[in-house]
Protein backbone atom coordinates (compact mmCIF):
# COMPACT_ATOMS: atom_id res chain seq x y z
CA UNK A 1 0.00 0.00 0.00
CA UNK A 2 1.40 3.37 -0.91
CA UNK A 3 1.78 6.04 1.72
CA UNK A 4 -0.92 8.70 1.65
CA UNK A 5 0.29 12.22 1.23
CA UNK A 6 -1.20 15.06 3.23
CA UNK A 7 -4.26 16.20 1.20
CA UNK A 8 -4.26 19.66 -0.34
CA UNK A 9 -7.97 20.40 -0.76
CA UNK A 10 -9.23 22.32 2.29
CA UNK A 11 -12.15 19.96 3.02
CA UNK A 12 -9.94 16.90 2.67
CA UNK A 13 -7.32 18.50 4.90
CA UNK A 14 -9.93 19.32 7.53
CA UNK A 15 -11.22 15.74 7.41
CA UNK A 16 -7.65 14.40 7.55
CA UNK A 17 -6.98 16.34 10.75
CA UNK A 18 -10.42 15.73 12.26
CA UNK A 19 -10.29 11.96 11.67
CA UNK A 20 -7.01 11.75 13.58
CA UNK A 21 -8.31 13.91 16.41
CA UNK A 22 -11.53 11.93 16.82
CA UNK A 23 -9.79 8.54 16.73
CA UNK A 24 -7.14 9.72 19.18
CA UNK A 25 -9.83 11.17 21.45
CA UNK A 26 -11.95 8.02 21.33
CA UNK A 27 -8.94 5.79 21.99
CA UNK A 28 -7.92 7.96 24.94
CA UNK A 29 -11.44 7.97 26.37
CA UNK A 30 -11.70 4.21 26.06
CA UNK A 31 -8.32 3.69 27.70
CA UNK A 32 -9.14 5.97 30.68
CA UNK A 33 -10.99 3.30 32.74
CA UNK A 34 -8.17 0.82 32.07
CA UNK A 35 -5.58 3.35 33.20
CA UNK A 36 -7.79 4.04 36.21
CA UNK A 37 -7.88 0.34 37.07
CA UNK A 38 -4.08 0.16 37.01
CA UNK A 39 -3.47 3.40 38.87
CA UNK A 40 -6.13 2.77 41.53
CA UNK A 41 -4.86 -0.75 42.15
CA UNK A 42 -1.82 0.78 43.84
CA UNK A 43 -3.72 3.29 45.99
CA UNK A 44 -5.34 3.22 49.39
CA UNK A 45 -9.15 3.45 49.15
CA UNK A 46 -9.19 7.01 50.46
CA UNK A 47 -7.07 8.22 47.51
CA UNK A 48 -9.27 6.50 44.92
CA UNK A 49 -12.28 8.64 45.81
CA UNK A 50 -10.32 11.82 46.47
CA UNK A 51 -11.50 14.91 44.59
CA UNK A 52 -9.82 15.63 42.27
CA UNK A 53 -8.47 12.19 41.45
CA UNK A 54 -4.67 12.12 41.34
CA UNK A 55 -3.61 9.67 38.66
CA UNK A 56 -0.13 8.95 39.96
CA UNK A 57 -0.19 6.88 43.18
CA UNK A 58 2.01 8.13 46.01
CA UNK A 59 3.76 4.81 46.15
CA UNK A 60 3.18 1.30 44.89
CA UNK A 61 0.83 -0.17 47.44
CA UNK A 62 1.40 -3.89 46.86
CA UNK A 63 -0.69 -4.53 49.94
CA UNK A 64 -3.75 -4.23 47.66
CA UNK A 65 -2.53 -7.17 45.59
CA UNK A 66 -1.82 -9.13 48.73
CA UNK A 67 -5.35 -8.44 49.94
CA UNK A 68 -6.76 -9.32 46.51
CA UNK A 69 -5.10 -12.72 46.57
CA UNK A 70 -5.64 -13.39 50.27
CA UNK A 71 -9.25 -12.18 50.22
CA UNK A 72 -11.03 -10.12 52.85
CA UNK A 73 -10.97 -13.10 55.18
CA UNK A 74 -7.38 -14.18 54.48
CA UNK A 75 -8.43 -17.49 52.93
CA UNK A 76 -6.26 -17.15 49.79
CA UNK A 77 -9.19 -18.41 47.73
CA UNK A 78 -8.59 -15.99 44.88
CA UNK A 79 -5.24 -17.61 44.07
CA UNK A 80 -7.06 -20.92 43.83
CA UNK A 81 -9.90 -19.38 41.78
CA UNK A 82 -7.42 -17.88 39.29
CA UNK A 83 -5.89 -21.32 38.93
CA UNK A 84 -9.40 -22.79 38.39
CA UNK A 85 -10.07 -20.28 35.63
CA UNK A 86 -6.77 -21.14 33.93
CA UNK A 87 -7.52 -24.86 34.14
CA UNK A 88 -11.11 -24.54 32.87
CA UNK A 89 -10.40 -22.02 30.10
CA UNK A 90 -7.27 -23.92 29.05
CA UNK A 91 -9.05 -27.28 28.97
CA UNK A 92 -12.00 -25.84 27.04
CA UNK A 93 -9.64 -24.26 24.51
CA UNK A 94 -7.79 -27.56 24.04
CA UNK A 95 -10.87 -29.77 23.71
CA UNK A 96 -12.67 -27.26 21.48
CA UNK A 97 -9.76 -27.23 19.05
CA UNK A 98 -9.33 -31.01 19.15
CA UNK A 99 -13.00 -31.94 18.72
CA UNK A 100 -13.73 -29.19 16.20
CA UNK A 101 -10.70 -30.22 14.13
CA UNK A 102 -11.76 -33.85 14.10
CA UNK A 103 -15.39 -33.10 13.23
CA UNK A 104 -14.48 -30.41 10.73
CA UNK A 105 -12.06 -32.82 9.05
CA UNK A 106 -14.72 -35.51 8.86
CA UNK A 107 -17.18 -33.12 7.24
CA UNK A 108 -14.62 -31.59 4.88
CA UNK A 109 -12.78 -34.64 3.58
CA UNK A 110 -15.10 -37.66 3.75
CA UNK A 111 -18.23 -38.56 1.87
CA UNK A 112 -20.76 -40.61 3.77
CA UNK A 113 -24.47 -41.07 3.84
CA UNK A 114 -26.19 -38.54 6.09
CA UNK A 115 -23.26 -36.16 6.02
CA UNK A 116 -25.22 -33.07 5.02
CA UNK A 117 -27.96 -33.77 7.51
CA UNK A 118 -25.41 -34.26 10.28
CA UNK A 119 -23.65 -31.06 9.31
CA UNK A 120 -26.90 -29.11 9.37
CA UNK A 121 -27.73 -30.60 12.78
CA UNK A 122 -24.42 -29.32 14.12
CA UNK A 123 -24.71 -25.90 12.50
CA UNK A 124 -28.26 -25.42 13.75
CA UNK A 125 -27.04 -25.58 17.35
CA UNK A 126 -25.42 -22.18 16.78
CA UNK A 127 -28.95 -20.81 16.95
CA UNK A 128 -29.52 -22.16 20.45
CA UNK A 129 -28.50 -19.54 22.99
CA UNK A 130 -26.81 -20.93 26.07
CA UNK A 131 -29.23 -19.00 28.27
CA UNK A 132 -32.16 -21.12 27.08
CA UNK A 133 -30.50 -24.48 27.75
CA UNK A 134 -28.63 -23.68 30.94
CA UNK A 135 -31.29 -25.00 33.30
CA UNK A 136 -31.65 -28.45 31.66
CA UNK A 137 -27.85 -28.61 31.31
CA UNK A 138 -27.55 -27.89 34.99
CA UNK A 139 -29.93 -30.78 35.73
CA UNK A 140 -27.81 -33.07 33.51
CA UNK A 141 -24.66 -32.11 35.38
CA UNK A 142 -26.41 -32.64 38.73
CA UNK A 143 -27.59 -36.07 37.63
CA UNK A 144 -24.08 -37.00 36.53
CA UNK A 145 -22.81 -35.80 39.91
CA UNK A 146 -20.40 -33.27 38.37
CA UNK A 147 -21.38 -30.28 40.50
CA UNK A 148 -18.45 -28.46 42.08
CA UNK A 149 -15.99 -30.14 39.74
CA UNK A 150 -13.79 -29.13 36.83
CA UNK A 151 -15.66 -31.64 34.70
CA UNK A 152 -18.96 -29.91 35.39
CA UNK A 153 -17.48 -26.55 34.45
CA UNK A 154 -15.85 -27.83 31.26
CA UNK A 155 -18.31 -30.40 29.90
CA UNK A 156 -20.93 -28.17 28.17
CA UNK A 157 -18.24 -26.16 26.33
CA UNK A 158 -15.96 -28.93 25.07
CA UNK A 159 -16.85 -28.30 21.44
CA UNK A 160 -18.38 -25.44 19.52
CA UNK A 161 -20.45 -25.41 16.37
CA UNK A 162 -18.62 -22.33 15.26
CA UNK A 163 -15.36 -24.24 15.72
CA UNK A 164 -16.63 -27.05 13.50
CA UNK A 165 -17.66 -24.49 10.89
CA UNK A 166 -14.28 -22.74 11.03
CA UNK A 167 -12.28 -25.99 10.78
CA UNK A 168 -14.39 -27.34 7.95
CA UNK A 169 -14.02 -24.13 5.95
CA UNK A 170 -10.29 -24.16 6.60
CA UNK A 171 -9.86 -27.83 5.66
CA UNK A 172 -11.95 -27.61 2.50
CA UNK A 173 -8.93 -25.79 1.11
CA UNK A 174 -6.54 -28.52 2.23
CA UNK A 175 -5.28 -30.44 -0.83
CA UNK A 176 -6.80 -33.92 -1.26
CA UNK A 177 -3.63 -35.08 -3.00
CA UNK A 178 -1.63 -34.98 0.22
CA UNK A 179 -4.21 -37.10 2.04
CA UNK A 180 -4.44 -39.56 -0.87
CA UNK A 181 -0.66 -39.83 -1.18
CA UNK A 182 -0.40 -40.68 2.50
CA UNK A 183 -3.11 -43.33 2.09
CA UNK A 184 -1.24 -44.93 -0.80
CA UNK A 185 1.86 -44.97 1.37
CA UNK A 186 -0.16 -47.04 3.83
CA UNK A 187 -0.75 -44.39 6.46
CA UNK A 188 -3.70 -45.17 8.72
CA UNK A 189 -6.57 -42.66 8.71
CA UNK A 190 -5.86 -41.79 12.29
CA UNK A 191 -2.20 -41.13 11.57
CA UNK A 192 -3.09 -38.96 8.59
CA UNK A 193 -5.24 -36.83 10.86
CA UNK A 194 -2.71 -36.63 13.65
CA UNK A 195 0.53 -36.20 11.71
CA UNK A 196 -0.58 -34.42 8.54
CA UNK A 197 -3.86 -32.59 9.09
CA UNK A 198 -3.47 -31.40 12.69
CA UNK A 199 -0.07 -29.75 12.18
CA UNK A 200 -1.37 -27.81 9.18
CA UNK A 201 -4.31 -26.04 10.82
CA UNK A 202 -2.29 -23.70 13.03
CA UNK A 203 -3.98 -20.36 12.29
CA UNK A 204 -7.52 -21.74 12.58
CA UNK A 205 -6.59 -23.51 15.81
CA UNK A 206 -5.08 -20.34 17.28
CA UNK A 207 -8.17 -18.29 16.43
CA UNK A 208 -10.45 -20.89 17.93
CA UNK A 209 -8.32 -21.45 21.02
CA UNK A 210 -8.18 -17.73 21.76
CA UNK A 211 -11.96 -17.41 21.35
CA UNK A 212 -12.74 -20.41 23.53
CA UNK A 213 -10.28 -19.38 26.22
CA UNK A 214 -11.68 -15.89 26.42
CA UNK A 215 -15.28 -17.06 26.52
CA UNK A 216 -14.61 -19.27 29.52
CA UNK A 217 -12.45 -16.65 31.20
CA UNK A 218 -15.52 -14.43 30.93
CA UNK A 219 -18.14 -17.00 31.88
CA UNK A 220 -20.13 -16.14 35.00
CA UNK A 221 -23.57 -17.66 34.48
CA UNK A 222 -22.59 -21.32 34.23
CA UNK A 223 -20.15 -21.38 37.18
CA UNK A 224 -22.84 -19.64 39.27
CA UNK A 225 -25.13 -22.57 38.54
CA UNK A 226 -22.81 -25.54 38.97
CA UNK A 227 -20.38 -24.39 41.63
CA UNK A 228 -21.31 -23.81 45.26
CA UNK A 229 -18.01 -24.58 46.96
CA UNK A 230 -15.79 -21.47 47.23
CA UNK A 231 -12.61 -23.26 46.25
CA UNK A 232 -14.11 -24.46 42.95
CA UNK A 233 -15.26 -21.01 41.83
CA UNK A 234 -13.72 -19.30 38.84
CA UNK A 235 -12.61 -15.67 38.67
CA UNK A 236 -15.91 -13.98 37.67
CA UNK A 237 -17.90 -15.58 40.49
CA UNK A 238 -15.16 -14.70 42.96
CA UNK A 239 -15.16 -11.07 41.80
CA UNK A 240 -18.90 -10.68 42.33
CA UNK A 241 -18.61 -12.02 45.86
CA UNK A 242 -15.51 -9.95 46.64
CA UNK A 243 -17.08 -6.72 45.39
CA UNK A 244 -20.30 -7.32 47.31
CA UNK A 245 -18.57 -7.78 50.66
CA UNK A 246 -18.92 -4.86 53.04
CA UNK A 247 -15.24 -4.91 53.93
CA UNK A 248 -14.12 -4.75 50.27
CA UNK A 249 -11.55 -2.04 49.70
CA UNK A 250 -11.61 -0.21 46.34
CA UNK A 251 -7.85 -0.53 45.95
CA UNK A 252 -8.00 -4.29 46.47
CA UNK A 253 -10.98 -4.46 44.07
CA UNK A 254 -8.88 -2.88 41.33
CA UNK A 255 -6.01 -5.23 42.16
CA UNK A 256 -8.44 -8.13 41.74
CA UNK A 257 -9.39 -6.68 38.35
CA UNK A 258 -5.76 -6.32 37.25
CA UNK A 259 -4.93 -9.90 38.22
CA UNK A 260 -8.01 -11.18 36.37
CA UNK A 261 -7.06 -9.20 33.26
CA UNK A 262 -3.35 -10.00 33.05
CA UNK A 263 -3.56 -13.41 31.32
CA UNK A 264 -6.03 -12.23 28.66
CA UNK A 265 -4.06 -9.03 28.04
CA UNK A 266 -0.86 -11.03 27.61
CA UNK A 267 -2.73 -13.23 25.10
CA UNK A 268 -4.13 -10.14 23.38
CA UNK A 269 -0.77 -8.44 22.97
CA UNK A 270 1.07 -11.52 21.76
CA UNK A 271 -1.74 -12.87 19.55
CA UNK A 272 -3.48 -9.65 18.54
CA UNK A 273 -3.89 -10.75 14.94
CA UNK A 274 -6.15 -13.60 16.03
CA UNK A 275 -8.24 -11.23 18.13
CA UNK A 276 -8.54 -8.62 15.40
CA UNK A 277 -9.07 -11.12 12.56
CA UNK A 278 -12.41 -10.96 10.79
CA UNK A 279 -13.05 -14.67 11.12
CA UNK A 280 -13.99 -14.17 14.76
CA UNK A 281 -17.13 -12.53 13.42
CA UNK A 282 -19.55 -15.39 13.77
CA UNK A 283 -18.44 -16.31 17.25
CA UNK A 284 -19.98 -13.31 18.90
CA UNK A 285 -23.15 -15.21 19.76
CA UNK A 286 -21.97 -16.47 23.14
CA UNK A 287 -21.44 -13.99 25.89
Amino acid sequence: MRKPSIPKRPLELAFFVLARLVVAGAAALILVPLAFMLSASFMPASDIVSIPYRWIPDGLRWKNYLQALAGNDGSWLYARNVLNSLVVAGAVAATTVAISASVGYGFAKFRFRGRNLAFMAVMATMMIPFETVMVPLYLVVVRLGFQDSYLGLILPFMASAFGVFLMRQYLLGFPDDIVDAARIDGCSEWRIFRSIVLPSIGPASATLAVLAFRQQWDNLLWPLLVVQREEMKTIPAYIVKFAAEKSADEGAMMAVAVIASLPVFILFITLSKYFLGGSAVFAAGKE
Partner: protein
Amino acid sequence: MKRASGMEGKRARWGWVFVAPGLLFFSLFSWYPIVNAFVTSFTNRKLISLKAPKFVGLQNYVRVLSSEDFWNSARATAVFAVGAFVPLLLLSLLFAALIVSLRGWKRPAQMALYSPAVLSSVVAALIWLVVFDPRGLANQGLNALFGTPGVDRRWLADATMAQVSTIVVYVWKYVGYFTILFVTGMGKIPDAVNEAALIDGAGPFRRFFSITLPLIRPTTVLVSVMILIQCMKTFSTQYLFVQSGAPTGPIEVMTLAIYNTAMRDLAIGRASAMSMLLFAVMLLLSWLQLRASRGGEDAL
Protein backbone atom coordinates in the same frame (compact mmCIF):
# COMPACT_ATOMS: atom_id res chain seq x y z
CA MET B 1 -14.91 -52.88 -8.65
CA LYS B 2 -15.93 -54.73 -5.56
CA ARG B 3 -12.70 -53.82 -3.85
CA ALA B 4 -13.12 -50.14 -4.75
CA SER B 5 -16.58 -49.98 -3.21
CA GLY B 6 -15.16 -51.71 -0.14
CA MET B 7 -12.57 -48.94 0.09
CA GLU B 8 -15.33 -46.37 -0.25
CA GLY B 9 -17.27 -48.01 2.54
CA LYS B 10 -14.23 -48.09 4.74
CA ARG B 11 -13.57 -44.44 4.13
CA ALA B 12 -17.19 -43.56 4.80
CA ARG B 13 -16.89 -45.33 8.13
CA TRP B 14 -13.83 -43.22 8.95
CA GLY B 15 -15.86 -40.12 8.15
CA TRP B 16 -18.33 -41.19 10.81
CA VAL B 17 -15.51 -41.90 13.24
CA PHE B 18 -14.22 -38.34 12.87
CA VAL B 19 -17.60 -36.66 13.25
CA ALA B 20 -18.96 -39.00 15.95
CA PRO B 21 -17.50 -37.15 18.97
CA GLY B 22 -19.07 -33.94 17.72
CA LEU B 23 -22.46 -35.49 17.05
CA LEU B 24 -22.45 -37.09 20.49
CA PHE B 25 -21.49 -33.78 22.09
CA PHE B 26 -24.09 -31.67 20.30
CA SER B 27 -26.84 -34.21 20.88
CA LEU B 28 -26.10 -34.32 24.58
CA PHE B 29 -25.34 -30.66 25.27
CA SER B 30 -27.44 -28.80 22.70
CA TRP B 31 -30.29 -30.87 21.29
CA TYR B 32 -31.25 -32.79 24.39
CA PRO B 33 -31.39 -29.68 26.64
CA ILE B 34 -33.38 -27.59 24.19
CA VAL B 35 -35.95 -30.36 23.79
CA ASN B 36 -35.89 -30.86 27.54
CA ALA B 37 -36.41 -27.14 28.18
CA PHE B 38 -39.34 -27.18 25.79
CA VAL B 39 -40.98 -30.16 27.50
CA THR B 40 -40.21 -28.88 31.00
CA SER B 41 -41.87 -25.57 30.19
CA PHE B 42 -45.19 -27.46 30.22
CA THR B 43 -44.64 -29.04 33.65
CA ASN B 44 -44.61 -27.85 37.24
CA ARG B 45 -41.09 -29.12 37.83
CA LYS B 46 -39.30 -27.83 40.92
CA LEU B 47 -35.55 -27.84 41.43
CA ILE B 48 -35.67 -29.58 44.80
CA SER B 49 -38.69 -31.83 44.96
CA LEU B 50 -39.27 -35.52 45.38
CA LYS B 51 -42.59 -35.42 43.56
CA ALA B 52 -42.48 -36.27 39.88
CA PRO B 53 -43.21 -33.21 37.72
CA LYS B 54 -46.75 -33.01 36.43
CA PHE B 55 -47.89 -31.87 33.02
CA VAL B 56 -49.64 -28.54 33.47
CA GLY B 57 -50.22 -27.48 29.88
CA LEU B 58 -49.83 -23.81 29.18
CA GLN B 59 -50.07 -22.84 32.84
CA ASN B 60 -46.44 -21.66 33.08
CA TYR B 61 -46.80 -19.53 29.99
CA VAL B 62 -50.06 -18.04 31.22
CA ARG B 63 -48.57 -17.33 34.61
CA VAL B 64 -45.36 -15.84 33.15
CA LEU B 65 -47.14 -13.74 30.57
CA SER B 66 -49.54 -12.36 33.14
CA SER B 67 -46.90 -11.56 35.76
CA GLU B 68 -45.66 -8.04 36.24
CA ASP B 69 -42.13 -9.26 36.91
CA PHE B 70 -41.90 -10.86 33.49
CA TRP B 71 -43.00 -7.73 31.69
CA ASN B 72 -40.63 -5.71 33.80
CA SER B 73 -37.78 -7.97 32.65
CA ALA B 74 -38.96 -7.72 29.06
CA ARG B 75 -38.96 -3.95 29.42
CA ALA B 76 -35.51 -3.95 31.09
CA THR B 77 -34.10 -6.12 28.30
CA ALA B 78 -35.68 -4.01 25.57
CA VAL B 79 -34.47 -0.75 27.11
CA PHE B 80 -31.00 -2.16 27.48
CA ALA B 81 -30.88 -3.68 23.99
CA VAL B 82 -32.13 -0.56 22.23
CA GLY B 83 -30.20 1.79 24.51
CA ALA B 84 -26.94 -0.03 23.78
CA PHE B 85 -27.73 -0.81 20.15
CA VAL B 86 -28.01 2.76 18.89
CA PRO B 87 -24.73 4.13 20.26
CA LEU B 88 -22.88 0.87 19.52
CA LEU B 89 -23.93 0.85 15.87
CA LEU B 90 -23.40 4.56 15.21
CA LEU B 91 -20.10 4.84 17.07
CA SER B 92 -18.60 1.66 15.61
CA LEU B 93 -19.55 2.79 12.09
CA LEU B 94 -18.02 6.21 12.72
CA PHE B 95 -14.82 4.86 14.28
CA ALA B 96 -14.42 2.28 11.53
CA ALA B 97 -14.83 4.87 8.77
CA LEU B 98 -12.26 7.10 10.45
CA ILE B 99 -9.81 4.27 11.14
CA VAL B 100 -10.00 3.05 7.54
CA SER B 101 -9.09 6.56 6.38
CA LEU B 102 -6.04 6.58 8.66
CA ARG B 103 -3.74 4.15 6.84
CA GLY B 104 -0.83 4.66 9.26
CA TRP B 105 -1.49 4.03 12.99
CA LYS B 106 -4.39 1.79 12.01
CA ARG B 107 -3.31 -1.12 14.17
CA PRO B 108 -2.57 0.77 17.41
CA ALA B 109 -5.90 2.58 17.05
CA GLN B 110 -7.75 -0.71 16.58
CA MET B 111 -5.95 -2.29 19.52
CA ALA B 112 -6.77 0.65 21.80
CA LEU B 113 -10.46 0.63 20.88
CA TYR B 114 -10.64 -3.15 21.13
CA SER B 115 -8.82 -3.53 24.45
CA PRO B 116 -11.90 -3.39 26.76
CA ALA B 117 -13.42 -6.26 24.78
CA VAL B 118 -10.57 -8.43 26.02
CA LEU B 119 -11.63 -7.99 29.64
CA SER B 120 -14.14 -10.24 31.34
CA SER B 121 -17.59 -8.66 31.54
CA VAL B 122 -17.39 -8.88 35.31
CA VAL B 123 -14.06 -7.07 35.41
CA ALA B 124 -15.46 -4.34 33.16
CA ALA B 125 -18.42 -3.96 35.50
CA LEU B 126 -16.11 -3.96 38.54
CA ILE B 127 -13.98 -1.10 37.16
CA TRP B 128 -17.10 0.94 36.46
CA LEU B 129 -18.53 0.12 39.88
CA VAL B 130 -15.64 2.12 41.34
CA VAL B 131 -15.79 4.78 38.60
CA PHE B 132 -19.51 5.26 39.40
CA ASP B 133 -18.80 5.80 43.10
CA PRO B 134 -20.51 9.02 44.31
CA ARG B 135 -17.03 10.54 44.71
CA GLY B 136 -15.66 8.62 41.74
CA LEU B 137 -14.30 9.47 38.33
CA ALA B 138 -17.66 9.55 36.49
CA ASN B 139 -19.10 12.33 38.62
CA GLN B 140 -15.79 14.17 38.67
CA GLY B 141 -15.42 14.02 34.89
CA LEU B 142 -18.94 15.25 34.14
CA ASN B 143 -18.74 17.94 36.82
CA ALA B 144 -15.48 19.22 35.36
CA LEU B 145 -17.01 19.17 31.88
CA PHE B 146 -20.22 21.00 32.81
CA GLY B 147 -18.78 23.16 35.58
CA THR B 148 -21.11 21.74 38.22
CA PRO B 149 -18.87 20.90 41.20
CA GLY B 150 -20.19 18.49 43.77
CA VAL B 151 -23.19 17.10 41.86
CA ASP B 152 -23.80 13.37 42.36
CA ARG B 153 -25.58 11.77 39.44
CA ARG B 154 -26.49 8.69 41.50
CA TRP B 155 -25.19 6.30 38.84
CA LEU B 156 -26.00 3.13 40.76
CA ALA B 157 -28.66 4.39 43.14
CA ASP B 158 -31.23 5.98 40.83
CA ALA B 159 -33.55 3.72 38.83
CA THR B 160 -33.04 5.48 35.49
CA MET B 161 -29.34 6.05 36.02
CA ALA B 162 -28.73 2.37 36.86
CA GLN B 163 -30.03 1.52 33.39
CA VAL B 164 -27.84 4.21 31.84
CA SER B 165 -24.85 2.89 33.77
CA THR B 166 -25.21 -0.69 32.52
CA ILE B 167 -25.50 0.65 28.98
CA VAL B 168 -22.38 2.79 29.41
CA VAL B 169 -20.39 -0.24 30.59
CA TYR B 170 -21.58 -2.32 27.65
CA VAL B 171 -20.96 0.31 24.98
CA TRP B 172 -17.51 0.98 26.40
CA LYS B 173 -16.69 -2.73 26.39
CA TYR B 174 -17.94 -3.66 22.94
CA VAL B 175 -17.65 -0.58 20.71
CA GLY B 176 -14.12 -1.58 19.68
CA TYR B 177 -15.21 -5.11 18.87
CA PHE B 178 -17.91 -3.98 16.47
CA THR B 179 -15.57 -1.33 15.05
CA ILE B 180 -13.21 -4.13 14.04
CA LEU B 181 -16.05 -5.94 12.25
CA PHE B 182 -16.83 -2.79 10.27
CA VAL B 183 -13.14 -2.21 9.52
CA THR B 184 -13.02 -5.75 8.12
CA GLY B 185 -16.11 -5.07 6.00
CA MET B 186 -14.81 -1.74 4.74
CA GLY B 187 -11.43 -3.28 3.96
CA LYS B 188 -13.12 -5.30 1.23
CA ILE B 189 -14.03 -2.15 -0.71
CA PRO B 190 -11.46 -1.80 -3.51
CA ASP B 191 -9.18 1.25 -3.14
CA ALA B 192 -9.85 2.09 -6.77
CA VAL B 193 -13.50 2.91 -6.06
CA ASN B 194 -12.62 5.52 -3.49
CA GLU B 195 -9.77 6.90 -5.58
CA ALA B 196 -12.04 7.33 -8.59
CA ALA B 197 -14.56 9.20 -6.42
CA LEU B 198 -11.77 11.37 -5.05
CA ILE B 199 -10.65 12.29 -8.55
CA ASP B 200 -14.26 13.10 -9.44
CA GLY B 201 -14.24 15.56 -6.57
CA ALA B 202 -16.41 13.71 -4.04
CA GLY B 203 -15.78 14.95 -0.50
CA PRO B 204 -15.32 12.69 2.53
CA PHE B 205 -18.99 12.80 3.55
CA ARG B 206 -20.18 12.16 0.03
CA ARG B 207 -17.77 9.20 -0.20
CA PHE B 208 -19.04 7.78 3.10
CA PHE B 209 -22.75 8.08 2.34
CA SER B 210 -22.65 7.26 -1.39
CA ILE B 211 -19.90 4.62 -1.51
CA THR B 212 -18.95 3.12 1.86
CA LEU B 213 -22.40 2.85 3.39
CA PRO B 214 -24.13 1.21 0.41
CA LEU B 215 -21.23 -1.18 -0.19
CA ILE B 216 -21.05 -2.43 3.40
CA ARG B 217 -24.81 -2.79 3.74
CA PRO B 218 -24.66 -6.57 4.28
CA THR B 219 -22.06 -6.07 7.03
CA THR B 220 -24.23 -3.41 8.62
CA VAL B 221 -27.27 -5.67 8.68
CA LEU B 222 -25.28 -8.58 10.07
CA VAL B 223 -23.59 -6.49 12.76
CA SER B 224 -26.91 -4.88 13.75
CA VAL B 225 -28.52 -8.23 14.41
CA MET B 226 -25.41 -9.47 16.21
CA ILE B 227 -25.49 -6.43 18.52
CA LEU B 228 -29.18 -6.96 19.29
CA ILE B 229 -28.81 -10.68 20.00
CA GLN B 230 -25.76 -10.12 22.15
CA CYS B 231 -27.48 -7.35 24.11
CA MET B 232 -30.40 -9.67 24.87
CA LYS B 233 -27.99 -12.07 26.59
CA THR B 234 -26.43 -9.51 28.88
CA PHE B 235 -26.05 -10.79 32.43
CA SER B 236 -22.74 -10.11 34.16
CA THR B 237 -22.91 -6.32 34.48
CA GLN B 238 -26.45 -6.38 35.85
CA TYR B 239 -25.66 -9.24 38.22
CA LEU B 240 -22.58 -7.54 39.67
CA PHE B 241 -24.33 -4.19 40.06
CA VAL B 242 -27.34 -5.76 41.77
CA GLN B 243 -25.14 -7.82 44.09
CA SER B 244 -23.24 -4.64 44.96
CA GLY B 245 -26.37 -2.78 45.96
CA ALA B 246 -27.92 -1.27 42.81
CA PRO B 247 -31.74 -1.43 42.62
CA THR B 248 -32.84 -4.73 41.05
CA GLY B 249 -36.08 -3.80 39.30
CA PRO B 250 -34.81 -1.41 36.65
CA ILE B 251 -31.98 -3.69 35.50
CA GLU B 252 -33.43 -7.17 36.07
CA VAL B 253 -32.94 -8.24 32.46
CA MET B 254 -34.39 -11.49 31.16
CA THR B 255 -31.31 -13.65 31.76
CA LEU B 256 -31.15 -12.42 35.34
CA ALA B 257 -34.86 -13.10 35.80
CA ILE B 258 -34.47 -16.65 34.45
CA TYR B 259 -31.54 -17.24 36.77
CA ASN B 260 -33.49 -15.94 39.75
CA THR B 261 -36.61 -17.94 38.88
CA ALA B 262 -34.61 -21.16 38.59
CA MET B 263 -32.10 -20.76 41.40
CA ARG B 264 -33.91 -18.55 43.93
CA ASP B 265 -37.54 -19.56 43.39
CA LEU B 266 -36.51 -23.09 42.29
CA ALA B 267 -39.34 -22.99 39.71
CA ILE B 268 -37.72 -24.87 36.85
CA GLY B 269 -40.93 -25.14 34.83
CA ARG B 270 -41.54 -21.41 34.89
CA ALA B 271 -37.86 -20.66 34.20
CA SER B 272 -38.04 -22.97 31.19
CA ALA B 273 -41.13 -21.18 29.89
CA MET B 274 -39.26 -17.87 30.19
CA SER B 275 -36.26 -19.41 28.40
CA MET B 276 -38.46 -20.55 25.54
CA LEU B 277 -39.95 -17.08 25.15
CA LEU B 278 -36.48 -15.52 25.09
CA PHE B 279 -35.42 -18.20 22.62
CA ALA B 280 -38.36 -17.40 20.35
CA VAL B 281 -37.35 -13.74 20.14
CA MET B 282 -33.71 -14.60 19.54
CA LEU B 283 -34.64 -17.17 16.93
CA LEU B 284 -36.57 -14.52 15.08
CA LEU B 285 -33.50 -12.27 15.18
CA SER B 286 -31.20 -15.14 14.15
CA TRP B 287 -33.47 -15.88 11.25
CA LEU B 288 -33.16 -12.26 10.18
CA GLN B 289 -29.40 -12.56 10.59
CA LEU B 290 -29.28 -15.69 8.43
CA ARG B 291 -31.32 -14.00 5.74
CA ALA B 292 -29.14 -10.94 5.93
CA SER B 293 -25.88 -12.87 5.94
CA ARG B 294 -26.82 -14.80 2.83
CA GLY B 295 -25.81 -11.69 0.94
CA GLY B 296 -23.27 -10.77 3.57
CA GLU B 297 -20.84 -13.67 3.64
CA ASP B 298 -18.58 -12.10 1.02
CA ALA B 299 -18.74 -8.81 2.83
CA LEU B 300 -17.03 -10.11 5.93
